[in-house]
């Protein structure tokens, strides 16, 4: 604890960097996966292609991806961009499946009815499909957010400033407290992000709180499957 007070400035600085670097990949995953997931929900073939692609991208170890990106992107190895791009790739890879399930969970009857009352394809997407896909989308983006915050610490191995620095420094100095503080602050960031997402969900999807138990179970089951 003494160490924490003495190095509070360092820890808080790293925490801010860590949070800042996590935000972009989470947003990119959410935004990119919505059209991709919608496409995947439209046909079995597209679904198989997109999900397989996502599965393959996710097999690349994070450290390996951090290292492989600079020659592809033409960036320098220490650039933050590498880590942000790498984590966005992972995020999208995980999120596409959740997003495809989210749009597939919208009942065909509802889509048929909304077409019958005169929605255009475009209007129906924004007013009917997207809001109804919301709960499952939220469940998947929560998984992505937690994973991103945790994976970002690996970035410190290639010299990007994140809370992972405390792991390396504490390890080299044989000082477990420093490592532990790194872990605790990462978990705190993950929890704060998660709470923000839940809050956002309550604001944007107010009706989910009044859902009957059965449909809530569908959402938790979908979340569990995304998580596995």
């Amino acid at each position, binding site marked *: 604890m003494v160490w924490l007070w003495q190095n509070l400035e360092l820890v808080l600085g790293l925490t801010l960097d860590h949070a800042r670097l996590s935000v972009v990949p989470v947003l990119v995953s959410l935004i990119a996966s919505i059209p991709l997931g919608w496409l995947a*929900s439209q046909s079995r073939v597209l*679904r198989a292609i997109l*999900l*397989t692609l*996502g*599965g*393959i991208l*996710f*097999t*690349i*170890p994070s*450290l*390996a*991806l951090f*290292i*492989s990106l600079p*020659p*592809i992107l033409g960036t320098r190895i220490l650039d933050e961009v590498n880590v942000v791009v790498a984590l966005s790739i992972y995020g999208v890879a995980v999120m596409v*499946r959740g997003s*495809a*399930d989210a749009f*597939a*969970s919208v*009942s*065909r009857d509802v889509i048929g009815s909304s077409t019958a009352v005169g929605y255009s394809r475009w209007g129906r997407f924004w007013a009917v499909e997207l809001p109804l896909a919301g709960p499952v989308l939220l469940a998947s983006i*929560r*998984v992505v957010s*937690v*994973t991103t*915050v*945790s*994976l970002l*610490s*690996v970035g410190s*191995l*290639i010299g990007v400033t994140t809370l*992972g620095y*405390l*792991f390396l420094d*504490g*390890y080299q100095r*044989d*000082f*477990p407290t420093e*490592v*532990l503080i*790194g*872990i605790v602050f*990462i*978990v705190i960031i*993950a929890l704060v992000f*998660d709470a923000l997402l839940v809050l956002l969900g309550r604001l944007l999807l107010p009706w989910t709180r009044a859902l009957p138990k059965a449909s809530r179970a*569908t959402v*938790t*089951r*979908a979340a*569990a*499957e995304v*998580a*596995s």
Partner: protein
Amino acid sequence: MNFFIDALNFILDPANLGGPKGILPRLGDHLFYSGLAMLFALIVGLPLGLAIGHTGRGRAFVIAISGAARALPTLGLLFFIVLFTGLGLWPLVAVLAILAVPPIIAGSYAGLESVNRQTIDAARAIGMTEWQLLWRVEVPLALPLIIGGVRSAALQVIATATIAGYVGLTGLGRFLIEGLAVRDYTLAIVGAILVAALALLVDGLLALTQLLVTPRGVSRGVTSTAPRTRAPLRRASATP
């Protein structure tokens, strides 16, 4: 892109296969760490997941724990444990197993939950005991999803076992770490390619297993008679 071509040449050069720092012994070590971690994760995760799925109790608890486990940075956890226990195989196996348990639990209970309630009632009605119900009805029907969970666990374990090189062990991660340390890009990318290839290979084998163990009735039901809104959900873990 030259780095990738050089890296492929390095991998294809037979001179780099054997020897203490060669590809094969490191590949063997990598598989050994990953296999051991998966073994322990299965011993812990499967019974828990099946118990939750069968009884329907403790689901919220497990979702919370899985989420929390996901937030734990594996590298930090490994360093933390090693600082207390000293270098060795077991800290690595422990953190890799911690990584693998949540997806295994999630896959097995989601699998059991996806089994049609009427099928379960019917099995009870013809006089099956709970034990028979679990092993002869629920597990066979849930097997694709259970293996789906094992697949994502194996994927994460193989990808993460690269950190073994940081705590005095070897494995394919050594190529990455040595390459980074001396700024030898080609060597680092050799490691990246090998780990990704291994992960894909193991994932492919498990996907094949998943196809082979799916009861014929299940695959037929999913493709033809299941309502469209539910089918993709259920197939989700079968094709990650």
